[in-house]
């Protein structure tokens, strides 16, 4: 008799554990751009002054744990007309305890070299967009995998990926790349650095099936986030 009760209790314990396991497996990370629409949380994104780095600070005011994910390809749209829009280059998944604040450094890339990076320390007034699933997203997923550890090459110095993004979004040429690097590089190294990043970015684009000539040919706007028809709203009812 005792044995049977013993087995019963054991079985209940096993089943309860299995049930809690099933429950835990169902835990899903809520994509950030969905969560901020659906859940009351306080957040802001601060520019670090480079196109390749931004900081997200987020406070969870709810009574629940928040499990959030920021996918590669999420776009941060700057409201200042002179500042470049940014795209997230590395996915992040994180949890925030109820009533806690968390800071996360985001790897981002500028989308338009003709515009300046949002100034350091500025809170960016942004609009969140889901990933487009296009060639830029594919490029960033690849580069995120290939990128050496952050100790060797800090993400915010990943110039080849930045150059590859620009080649996809703008009519980028070598001169534009030199102009961008001029403030950061000694004049005697400028030709070499710009040339190196140009070649490395071309190789990255070849991996996603885009040839150099094709990049130049299609760079009349291509996947640039803003279009010249941004003012147009054809679903507006008068």
């Amino acid at each position, binding site marked *: *008799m005792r044995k*049977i*009760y013993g*087995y*019963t209790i054991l*079985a*209940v314990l096993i*089943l*309860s554990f299995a*049930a809690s396991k*099933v*429950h835990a497996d*169902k835990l899903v990370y*809520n994509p950030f751009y969905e969560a901020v*629409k*659906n*859940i*009351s949380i306080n957040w802001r994104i601060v520019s670090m002054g480079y196109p390749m780095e931004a900081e997200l600070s987020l406070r969870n005011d*709810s*009574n*629940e744990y928040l499990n959030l994910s920021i996918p590669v390809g999420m776009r941060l749209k700057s409201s200042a007309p002179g500042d470049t829009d940014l795209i997230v280059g590395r996915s992040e998944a994180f949890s925030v305890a109820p009533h806690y604040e968390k800071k996360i450094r985001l790897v981002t890339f500028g989308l338009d070299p003709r515009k300046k990076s949002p100034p350091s320390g500025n809170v960016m007034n942004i609009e969140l*967009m889901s990933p*487009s*699933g296009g060639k830029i997203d594919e490029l960033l997923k690849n580069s995120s995998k290939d990128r050496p550890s952050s100790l060797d090459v800090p993400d915010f110095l990943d110039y080849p990926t930045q150059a590859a993004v620009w080649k996809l979004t703008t009519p980028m040429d070598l001169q534009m790349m030199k102009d961008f690097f001029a403030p950061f590089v000694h004049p005697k190294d400028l030709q070499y650095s710009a040339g190196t990043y140009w070649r490395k970015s071309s190789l990255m684009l070849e991996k996603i099936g885009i040839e150099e000539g094709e990049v130049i040919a299609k760079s009349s706007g291509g996947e*640039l*986030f*803003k*279009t*010249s*028809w*941004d*003012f*147009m*709203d*054809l*679903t*507006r*009812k008068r």
Partner: protein
Amino acid sequence: MIMKSKISLFLLMLVFLSILPLTADEAVSFYQAASDDRIKIYMEGKGESAGDVFTVKYSVEEPVDIIVNEGTVFVPQNEKYQKVIIDRDQKASLVPPGGKFTITGYCLDPYLSPPPLPENIKDKSELARYGVLPLYSSEKEYSIPISLIRTARLLYDNGKLHNDLGSKHLKTVTAWAIWYSATRNKADGWNKIRLISEITKQITEEGAKKTPEEIQVLTDNIWDDVNNIILYSKNLR
């Protein structure tokens, strides 16, 4: 002894069955949630005919996950506003005491106004309260728009549509495909003539500098996409 072990087995099964509902942690449908007294839901329009169409405000006593299913149609009590169809499954975690979230969809009655923002409603008794009508696939009226929505998404994801309007492109061509299908026998329907007129009007209002060739390309690309969505949706239906 055998009897006792049978009782134990029965008790064990009872315990197992009582655990099952805990594991089946599925989101409840919006329709169920709206008819549950423990969940209070208020819907407000956002004044948009496509994209973010409703703000859903709620109050709950216990946390619950809900899902607004693709194809759910919201019918306004006031007939001067458009019916709205939900374009994809949308989940929300409702946490006490309450909050709000946004849902997306497309308006179905092109000649009527979209669900308005509360501040734009003069008669407060009209505040947009929506009855929830779940979609029945046999209802021809609603099977066409949902088929157009799915086809548009499929074509766009596979790079078969243009992208002149960037992030607004899919929403725009899907809405025009729905509205053109609903009004194609009418002279003032959502046809290519109306599209050209709307594009020209907005360029003039904005004072944008656009060449006739650029306007022609935009119009042709949007209209190609609208036609392709309708064509492929018929093939898939």
